[in-house]
């Protein structure tokens, strides 16, 4: 194994002069590319919604998904509250908020699993029609992102338990939050284009 020297303290001074943290910038750039990834999937969904509409969209249960939407919005509140807590130096509260986030994320995924199963029962599957294909692919990849978010939340929680975050050093919590809120925004868009319009 090769020993790698930690980077020079001042290595990122050009970024700091611009008010930019390198980790945060990297995560934002990654989120920018994720916008285009979901952009491709959403474009495909809308393409078929407009050019090849099917009556199957009537099978969707807006009420159930509405509850799930509240769950995800609430999880964004807990994430941002975790960040605010660690910003005050209150690591214990941060850990509680992260647990709440994990619970809400799992609740969302359970709701989605329930929705998928009931749609399967009605005969809507990945291969039943272009609507089924584009619907499950799009919502499925969003669900995968929530799953990754839950894993990230767990890792942030364990780091928090080990005391890795302090009032002045908690960029890890912040960039986790950026990802989580982005996944929330994607859901806001999906809820509209799939279930509302």
């Amino acid at each position, binding site marked *: 194994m*090769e020993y*790698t*020297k930690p*980077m*020079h303290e001042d*290595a*990122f*001074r*050009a*970024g*700091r002069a*611009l008010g*930019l*943290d*390198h980790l945060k*910038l*990297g995560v934002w*750039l*990654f989120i*920018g*590319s*994720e916008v*285009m*990834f*979901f*952009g*491709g*999937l959403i*474009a*495909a969904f809308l*393409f*078929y919604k407009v*050019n*090849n509409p*099917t009556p199957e969209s009537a099978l969707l249960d807006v009420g159930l998904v509405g509850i799930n939407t509240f769950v995800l919005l609430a999880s964004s509140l807990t994430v941002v509250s975790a960040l605010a807590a660690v910003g005050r130096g209150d690591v214990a509260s941060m850990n509680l908020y992260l647990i709440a986030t994990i619970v809400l994320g799992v609740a969302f995924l359970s709701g989605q699993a329930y929705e998928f199963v009931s749609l399967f029962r009605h005969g809507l599957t*990945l*291969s*039943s*029609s*272009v609507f*089924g*294909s*584009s619907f*499950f*692919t799009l919502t499925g*990849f969003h669900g995968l992102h929530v799953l990754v978010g839950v894993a990230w939340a767990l890792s942030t929680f364990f780091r928090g338990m080990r005391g890795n975050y302090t009032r002045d050093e908690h960029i890890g919590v912040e960039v986790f939050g950026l990802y989580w809120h982005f996944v929330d925004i994607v859901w806001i868009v999906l809820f509209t284009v799939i279930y509302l319009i």
Partner: protein
Amino acid sequence: MKSLVSRLRQPAPAWLRYFGWNTDHKVIGVQYLVTTFFFFLVGGALAMVVRTELLQPGVDVVNGTQYNRVMTNHGSLMIFLWVIPVLAGFGNYFVPLMIGARDMAFPRMNALSFWLIPPGGLLMIASFFAGAAEAGWTAYVPLSIRTPDGQTLWALGVIVLGTSSILGAVNFLTTIVTMRAPGMTLWRLPLFVWGIIATSLLVLSATPVLTAGLIMVALDRLVGTQFFAVAGGGDPVLWQNLFWFYSHPAVYIMILPGMGIISEVFPVFSRKPIFGYRMIALSSLAIAVLGLTVWAHHMFTSGMDPRLRIPYMVSSMVIAVPTGVKIFSWLATIWNGKLRFTTPMLFAMGFISQFLIGGLTGIFLAAIPVDLHVHDTYFVVAHLHFVLFGGSVSAIYAGLYYWYPKITGRMYDERLGQAHFWMNFIGMSLTYLPMFLAGLQGMPRRVADYDPNFLVPNQLASFGGFLLGISVLPFLYNAFVSLRSGKEAGGNPWRALTLEWQTSSPPPQHNFEQEPVITHGPYDYGEGHLAPHPAGAPAAGE
């Protein structure tokens, strides 16, 4: 026994670090360059098969299916495993050096970006054992969802390689924005760095869309989704949109860093400040922005809405403006310069002449009536190869020769280099110029057999192709032998002003003995007080 033990206790020899996980951007850069050159040789061998098959009419060496597999993987290897990642390799080695940084912003992610390349390449090559991809590098549906299993491996390989690109782009942009040395302002960035900025922005915007499309293809093949199954209401034009939204910008991803290399080479070997520095930098960004708006010009024959054709034609043609800005700026840079015709300089000049042919025929193809006529003929093949081989590969060779002394600490052999250039230039012209004629006369592309009327242009192209294949030999010999026997290069053999030359060759692990402070632009040649070397010391090639 004793000696064995003591030998085991010694630190690993330096060359071993190139074969494992390493976070030094220079090691990663070399890993990229060597690995991608290997894939270039594989792709080149496939091209030799193509040219052998087309030496005469009739299906003789390989049958139609095999031909399609060879042709598909030739294109895919050259694009996804050679041109795109080799430029990322240059970026890895030189962006931190050029901006005076110690490493990339995320060294571990950087190593990951590289280590995604061999699995991606192996997936693609392994597809040959499962009935290789045969739908062309464009993988048009519904063909690409009906071909054998190798196509699935191909799609997964391209997804992996795209992910590597995206991580690399995040890393480059973060590094350039946050890690510049004191005094390295926006308008003092070397033009290669500007090229990497523009390319990274394109990668972030366009590659994820291809990933989304490839996921749909893979799902159609694996779990029976209906995205592109025409019987189930799927629409092939959707794939064309998703594919070209990435793959048109991909040609700029493959040329902008190359243009950056050219912009490094010309001022150094002309001993003149580059002409129009800011315009060249801004034209890279302009090409990136415009490049995202033109994808549907590949679909003029796909039954698209006729009202949209003219806007796509116009936006495609407008790209000639920033491209022209670059070419005229390069010509003005060498005008009246004190030229040194070293190998990198020759490749840079070859780049201009050959890329110009590729670029101008691109304007022909953007014109709707011409495109309808020559769509899917050899005219397109010739255009593409003038841009990607005459353009990108010439620039890559220019970069390899230009930076060989920096990476290895040794000079390459100039006579072998020049022989390589002339073989490459003549082979290239002989291969692709006749294809324009064949295409205009109606020879379709991607077919193993052809009408005997097209014999002459095909034979010329095959002889040129074989010459291109042989031309790699002097390069390889040169690169290997000069490692040991080349003259010591010293820190700055070309007497260049950019930062990567202001440290030893090869640079120490921490890049610079003292953190550099930048007080002038990268190409301020001809200003006496900036001479980086003791006056009178001749530069290499003088």
